[in-house]
């Protein structure tokens, strides 16, 4: 069963590579000309073209691209002039740290929202949820920057670490973890401080979605017959909510969490460029300015893979929560997801 899901995930990744390759070939600008600059002669261009396999038929080009990608060879970035893979390696840890914090925050906030509001049917709660879900990430970023950094000076407004501090050397590249490992508490405190605003801005959207889904899914679970059975047993409402309600209500919010990962990645680009956070998002924002498709292709592959892995985990968590799902052969990661649209 796990094997079937892994196979499905691999197939999706293969499709991702096809899509990225296809986008690379539809690009109107000539990538070789962009790489070599306007002064390069016709001979140099065709030599480079041959070197990059661009004079072969498309299927051959694709296999070449796929082989390279699997060996960790992507093209050279047009803006940084370095191999995209090296750029990705350099920028990934910062994003990983930020995104992990945001996801944890979203889970905690979302679960709390959901549980606290599940048993109240007030229209204020509903409007509150909708309002928070309607805030564009850039408004949230800008407003918190203006208020908490510009006016109140509570939190730093850019970067991962204050100017006077030296980042701890390795091994993970996650500043909070590394400084903890090295016992550098000044750096730990400072890097955690830098995380607060961007992580919060990223977490709000997913937290609201997860909270809203959990709330409506709890509400429908709480009207199920087996909840009446639990009440007939004489269990307290708290026992009923946690033992019989929560686990049965988990499938939909888990699916939402998996879906929100995609939005979160897009949010990373916005939030990192507002807070000058040196991660993949900032790299992407600069690549967009420089019309640097090789860089974007690399980012798309990395984030796409991350998304597929996250949703594989979500799938496994869902079947851990609901034994009825274990028997079913999942046709693809998208299956359970569609059910959550109408929360």
């Amino acid at each position, binding site marked *: 069963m796990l094997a079937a899901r892994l196979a499905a995930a691999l197939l999706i990744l293969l499709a991702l590579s096809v899509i990225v390759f296809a986008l690379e070939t539809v690009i109107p600008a000539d990538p070789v000309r962009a790489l070599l600059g306007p002064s390069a002669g016709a001979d140099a261009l065709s030599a480079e073209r041959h070197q990059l396999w661009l004079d072969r038929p498309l299927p051959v080009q694709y296999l070449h691209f796929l082989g390279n990608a699997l060996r960790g060879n992507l093209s050279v970035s047009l803006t940084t002039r370095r191999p995209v893979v090296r750029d990705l390696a350099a920028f990934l840890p910062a994003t990983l740290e930020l995104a992990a914090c945001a996801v944890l925050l979203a889970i905690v906030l979302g679960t709390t929202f959901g549980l606290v509001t599940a048993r109240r049917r007030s229209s204020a709660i509903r409007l509150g949820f909708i309002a928070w879900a309607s805030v564009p990430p850039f408004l949230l970023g800008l407003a918190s920057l203006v208020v908490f950094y510009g006016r109140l000076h509570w939190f730093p407004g850019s970067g991962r670490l204050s100017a006077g501090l030296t980042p701890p050397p390795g091994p993970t590249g996650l500043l909070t973890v590394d400084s903890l490992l090295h016992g550098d508490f000044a750096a730990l405190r400072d890097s955690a401080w830098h995380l607060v605003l961007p992580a919060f801005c990223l977490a709000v959207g997913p937290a609201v979605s997860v909270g809203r889904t959990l709330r409506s899914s709890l509400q429908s679970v709480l009207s*199920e*017959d*087996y909840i*009446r*059975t*639990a*009440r*007939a*047993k*004489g*269990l*307290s409402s708290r026992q009923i909510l946690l*033992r*019989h309600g929560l*686990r*049965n209500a988990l499938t939909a919010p888990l699916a939402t969490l998996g879906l929100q990962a995609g939005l979160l990645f897009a949010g990373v680009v916005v939030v990192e460029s507002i807070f000058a956070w040196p991660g993949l998002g900032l790299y992407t924002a600069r690549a967009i300015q420089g019309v640097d498709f090789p860089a974007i292709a690399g980012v798309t592959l990395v984030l796409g893979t991350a998304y597929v892995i996250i949703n594989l985990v979500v799938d496994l968590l869902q079947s851990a*929560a*609901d*034994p*009825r799902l274990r028997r079913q052969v999942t046709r693809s990661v998208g299956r359970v997801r569609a059910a959550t649209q109408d929360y």
Partner: protein
Amino acid sequence: MNVLEVRGLQVSFPGGLSALRGVDVTVGPGEILALVGESGSGKSVLALAALGLLPSSALLSGHVRLGGADMVTATDAQRRAARRRSAGAVFQDPMTSLNPTMRVGRQVAEVTGSPREAVDLLDQVGVPEPGRRARQYPHELSGGLRQRVMIAMALAGDPALVIADEPTTALDVTVQAGILELFRELRDSRGTSFVLVTHDLAVAGEVADRIAVLYAGRMAEVGAAGDVLGRPSHPYTAALLAARITTRSARSRPLPTLAGELPDPHNPEPGCAFAPRCGAAQQECRTVVPALEPSPRHAGQDACIRSGQVELLADASGLSEGPGWQRPSTSSELALQLTGVNRTFGRGRRSQQVLRGVSLDVPKGGAVALVGESGCGKSTTLRIAVGLDSPDSGDVEYGHGGRPQLVFQDAGASLTPWATIGELLAQRLRNERVPQQHWRDRTVETLRLVGLSERIAERKPHQISGGQRQRAAIARAIVVPPVLLACDEPISALDTTLAAVVLNLLGRLRRELGMALLFVTHDLAAARVVADEIAVMVDGRIVERGPADQLLDRPNEAYTRRLVDALPRMSA
């Protein structure tokens, strides 16, 4: 010391719906009380009120004493404690009533405490291999086992009282018999009292020590099971008994039916709620609410001011019996002929052969009932017979006439929600190439034939009542008389008094229109009333077929005998 005492209980809901209008009932230790009534009688509300499980919007007055607490006035915590200590509950559908994500052993142990006790309890309620079953999830068990798990759960903590709301309605007849037997055993071995809520007098007769009959939110009659079933003193009880479809119901004329409908629970009329439908009602009945008083006919009580004065039963109970049926005109021609039909679903290892060489013919104008338990292949046979499915091998042939039609179990759902009844009828007229100038007349005529007014043609399904939807579905089937009218469990979801009405309608239509009838059911008694011949189906095969009465009286096959034996019988 009674384990449950209900005194003057009234329950109403916001919007003016009054579900219970002053009910008194008690349950003694080690006693099985059956609470009998049709839908809308308030029997389920009474069960939930006893457990203190009504929604908080319900308005209650009166007293419900359970385990030392008054469930009407107690706080939430006190009610919870009373339920925990003194009561268990079994609900109708064990699939939805068990938590799907918790192992059944843990669900039982949640109240008793130790897994060991849970396994013991599962053993006591007759779950085989209780140790292994305890580690399974509800979806891994059969319907009968799930209901036994529910019962084990209700018994956990050794309550004095178990309230079971329609515990066998969702189960097959043979499984139902086992569950009812279990109730009796548990009463004897553990001294547990049961309240059994049911719409089926026969189920009540099977196990109950006492029977309480509810009508429109009031108690009509209470007494020892034998007395209530054998010497009913309330006209409603008598009507219910007479309208029951049994293996002894007359086949030569329409079933007796109860005129009128349940009173509107929003605007109850003064006086006895049954008076408008009662043959013995007098002027006084329509003004005075009768109190529950000792019955003149048995040791129990009834709420009827006339019970001591008139000779009751058939003539006075409001039942109408029509003249005898004319003999249906059957011929040697066939309306339907299935020959050697095989059908397999799925492929490879998961494949399942549902039909194994089914041969079945229905003569023109004749009626055949196909009887069997769930999963035996009777529904697949029906689908093939009307052309909704095709056999893998074998032949399906029809006689001359309109194409075969089907009356669905859920008649309401078989009507397209956004189309009017008139449109649905017109669609069939068009498909059968009836000239358009006749549509209007045919529609009106057919609606009248099934007992609907022509105004129904303009309505959509959700704008008419459940009974009207059932008739509308039948109207669509017969607007062009089909060579064969197939019926898929058309009465299994209906109350006793309504079921008889539908069977009479089908019987009349088939005689008037000369249609052949293929009637699929799990109910042998209904099969006997409707059909000339009965075919019994097990595991995709027809094992026995014969004239209806002969098959019930002298079944040849062991399986048929088991089905006949499992029919609940009145102990009276």
